[in-house]
């Protein structure tokens, strides 16, 4: 289903033709095929992003012994947070997950991810229409891309 080479080529062609909006259009193939943070933010609908300190990483570990299940906890203090995406830079497909947060839901999620190796992990937060990124390195002592 997801042959990475072909899918990436198709996706980059598609995104070159027309940038996709994010919400309510089904699974965002272009974003999940993106290879860099820049590509991914663009595919999510952003024209750029700024660093932020208004994201806290809760109980996210600095060192993960088991790369098969790294529990990542991200919470945004940015007003009008609309979505949160997790990008694991050194995974074969860096965009791991994207969450849409409607009003009334706390802009905070906890999920477990596979990490192939030690990597920077980015939380990409869309708040009031703009994109912000907070980055944290998670060291993996035993990779889990099996």
């Amino acid at each position, binding site marked *: 289903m*997801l042959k990475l080479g072909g899918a990436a080529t198709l996706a980059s062609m598609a995104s070159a033709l027309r940038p996709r909006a994010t919400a309510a259009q089904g699974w965002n193939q272009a974003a999940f095929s993106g290879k860099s943070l820049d590509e991914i933010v663009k595919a999510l609908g952003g024209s750029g992003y700024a660093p932020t300190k208004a994201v806290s990483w809760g109980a996210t570990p600095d060192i993960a012994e088991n790369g098969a299940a790294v529990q990542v906890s991200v919470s945004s203090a940015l007003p009008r947070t609309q979505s949160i995406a997790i990008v694991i830079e050194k995974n074969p497909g860096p965009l791991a*997950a994207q969450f*849409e947060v409607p009003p*009334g*839901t706390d802009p905070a*999620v906890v999920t477990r991810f*596979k990490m192939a190796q030690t990597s920077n992990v980015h939380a990409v937060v869309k708040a009031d229409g703009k994109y912000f990124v907070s980055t944290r390195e998670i060291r993996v002592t035993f990779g889990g891309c*099996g």
Partner: protein
Amino acid sequence: MGDPTRIRASMQGDKVLVRILMTHEMESGQRKDADGKLVPAHFIREVSARHNGRPVLSAQWGPAVSKNPFLQFTFAGGKPGDKIQVSWVDSKGDTRSDETTIS
């Protein structure tokens, strides 16, 4: 179809804490089987959580979410007895929907 999703929804002060454990292989498409052949990717792509029918969280996932995915979040406006429904669609088009009530 897939196996049942375990959902716990409980009041934490005036908010509802939702903890979800789905049953899914979340095959990454990177792994090789005993014969050295690549196991095709098969993973949950879309997740939706609803409170009495109203969306409280929706997600798009790639194959990097761990096997038997765990998800936790909190929302306001729920009360004991209200329904929480969680559904997903995977990369082969399989779907699963389960519900619980807030305790």
